[in-house]
C-alpha cells in the first residue's frame, strides 16, 4: 500500500493548535526580557530580580517541602493500604476506587470550604502551619492520582506469589513491603510522586483561601504588582511543571506506571 500523504486539513488543524499553545508562551518570554523601568527589550534584569528575591526562594522552599511531605505521607498511607487490599481484601477495591474518585470530582474550592469548617478549632500548630493543615489537604488532592497509579502498578505484579515467596524465606511484613513489594512498584510510585509534585507546586485555591504563602501565592503577588518580573516567574513555574511531567513520561515508559496524567491547579 502506498504511504498516505499528510492531508491539508490535518496541517491546518495542527498549525492552529501549535499556535494556540505556543503564542502565549512566546508572549511570556518576550515580556520576561523587557525592562521593568523602560518596557524595552532585552534585559535579564527580571530573572535576576527573581533569583535575588528572598520571598521567591522562601515560597519555593515551602511549596517544595510541602510537596515532599505530601508525597511521603501519601506513600506511607496508600502503599500499604493498596497492598493489603490487593492481597487480602480484593472486594474492598471498588470501594476505595470510588473514594478515590471523590477528590477527583469535587473541586478544591468546595473541598477547602469543608476542610476549613472542620478544622477551624484545631490547635494552631496544625491549623496555622502549612505542614499541618495544607499538607493534610494536599494528601487528599493527591489521593486519586496515587491510587490509580499505584493500583495499576500492583495489578501488573503478582502480589500473592511475591508475598508468599518472601514470607517462606522468613521475611517479616515490613521487610516484605519495603524490600520486595516496593522495588516492584517503583515505577508506579515514582509516577504518582511526580504528579503529586506538579499538583502541589501549582496549587493555588486551597492555599489562598486558607491564607498560606506558597509558591503560586507568591507568583500571584508579583503578578499584581510587577508585570515583567511576573513573566520570568511564570516561565520558571512552567519549567517546573514541564520537568515534573517529563519525568513522569520517562518513568511512565517503564512497566506498570500507567496512571492518570491529568492534574493541576486551575
Amino acid at each position, binding site marked *: 500500500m502506498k504511504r498516505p*500523504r499528510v492531508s491539508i486539513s490535518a496541517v491546518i488543524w495542527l498549525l492552529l493548535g501549535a499556535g494556540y499553545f505556543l503564542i502565549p508562551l512566546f508572549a511570556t518570554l518576550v515580556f520576561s526580557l523587557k525592562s521593568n523601568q523602560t518596557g524595552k527589550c532585552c534585559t535579564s534584569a527580571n530573572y535576576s530580580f527573581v533569583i535575588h528575591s528572598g520571598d521567591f526562594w522562601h515560597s519555593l522552599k515551602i511549596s517544595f517541602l510541602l510537596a515532599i511531605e505530601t508525597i511521603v505521607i501519601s506513600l506511607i498511607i496508600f502503599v500499604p493500604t493498596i497492598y493489603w487490599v490487593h492481597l487480602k481484601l480484593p472486594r474492598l477495591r471498588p470501594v476505595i476506587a470510588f473514594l478515590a474518585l471523590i477528590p477527583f470530582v*469535587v473541586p478544591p474550592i468546595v473541598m*477547602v470550604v469543608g476542610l476549613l469548617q472542620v478544622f477551624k478549632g484545631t490547635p494552631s500548630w496544625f491549623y496555622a502551619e502549612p505542614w499541618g493543615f495544607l499538607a493534610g489537604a494536599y494528601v487528599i488532592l493527591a489521593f486519586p492520582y496515587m491510587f490509580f497509579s499505584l493500583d495499576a502498578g500492583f495489578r501488573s505484579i503478582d502480589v500473592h506469589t511475591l508475598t508468599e515467596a518472601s514470607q517462606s524465606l522468613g521475611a517479616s511484613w515490613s521487610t516484605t513491603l519495603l524490600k520486595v513489594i516496593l522495588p516492584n512498584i517503583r515505577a508506579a510510585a515514582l509516577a504518582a510522586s511526580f504528579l503529586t509534585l506538579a499538583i502541589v507546586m501549582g496549587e493555588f485555591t486551597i492555599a489562598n483561601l486558607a491564607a498560606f504563602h506558597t509558591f503560586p501565592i507568591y507568583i500571584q503577588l508579583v503578578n499584581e504588582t510587577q508585570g515583567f518580573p511576573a513573566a520570568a516567574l511564570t516561565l520558571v513555574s512552567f519549567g517546573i511543571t514541564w520537568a515534573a511531567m517529563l519525568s513522569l513520561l520517562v518513568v511512565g515508559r517503564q512497566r506498570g506506571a500507567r496512571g492518570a*496524567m491529568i492534574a*493541576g491547579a486551575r
Partner: protein
Amino acid sequence: MPFFAYTIAFLFLPAGSILLGAFEGKESGWTVANVQLLFHHPYIDAYKTSIEISLVTALAGGIAGLFIAYAALRDGTPRWVRSAFTTFAGVAANFGGIPLAFAFIATIGPLGIVTVFFRNHGYDLSAHGITPFSKLGVELAYLYFQLPLMILVISPAIDGLRREWREAASNLGAKQWQFWRYVGLPVLMPSILGAMILLFGNAFAAYATAYSLTSGTVNIVPILIGAYYSGNVLDNPHLAQAMAFGMFIVLAATMVIYIPLQRRAARWSK
C-alpha cells in the same frame, strides 16, 4: 487502618460539614433559606455564568481538540509530530492557574504582543471584547487547558478506530463522509460526549485562572465562594457552604450523565 482514619478526617467530615452547614441557619437551627438564596441574584447569576463558561469551553475545546487530536494521530502525520503533540498536551493540561493567567495577559492584555500586533495593523482587539479581563478572555484562557485535556482524553478512542473498519467501508463502496457518518462518529460519539463532560467539570471547578485574570471580578461561583473567605463579607459562613453544596450538585449531575456514556464507550475498546 490509618487510611480509613485519614479519609474520614479529610474526606467525610468536610463533606458532611458542607452538607449540614448548607442547611444551617445563621444563628442556629435548620433552614433551607441558604439554598433558596442560591436561586436569587447575585448567586443564580454566578451559577449561570459558571455554567455558560464551562459549556462554551467544553464545546469549543472539545470540538477543536477532537480535530487536532485526529490530525495528530491520523495516518500520514509524521510520528514525531504525533509524539510532540501528545507530550505537549500532557504538560499543557497541567499548566493552569496563576502562570496561565499571566501568559494570557502577556498575549491579549493591554500591552500583550497579540494586542499590540493587531493595534499596529489598525485593529483594536479590546473594542471587540478580546481582553483577558472579560468573560471571553476567561474562556480563551480556559481553552488553554481544555484543548490539551480533550487531546489526552480522546486520543485512545481515536486510536481505537480500527483501520479494518475504514477499509471494510471503502471496500463496500462508502465514501469518506459516509464512513464518518455511519461508522466513525457513532463509534466515537460516547467518548466525545464523555470527554466533553469531563471538560465541563474541569472548567466548572476552576478558580485560580479566573481569579488571577480578572482580579476576582468575573462573577463565577468559585470566585464568589473565595470572596467569602478572603474578603469582608463573612457574615454568614453557611451561605458559602450552600454555594459549595450547589457546585457539588451540578458536578454530581454531570457524573450521572458521564458514567453510562463511559460504559458505552468501553464497548468498542476490546
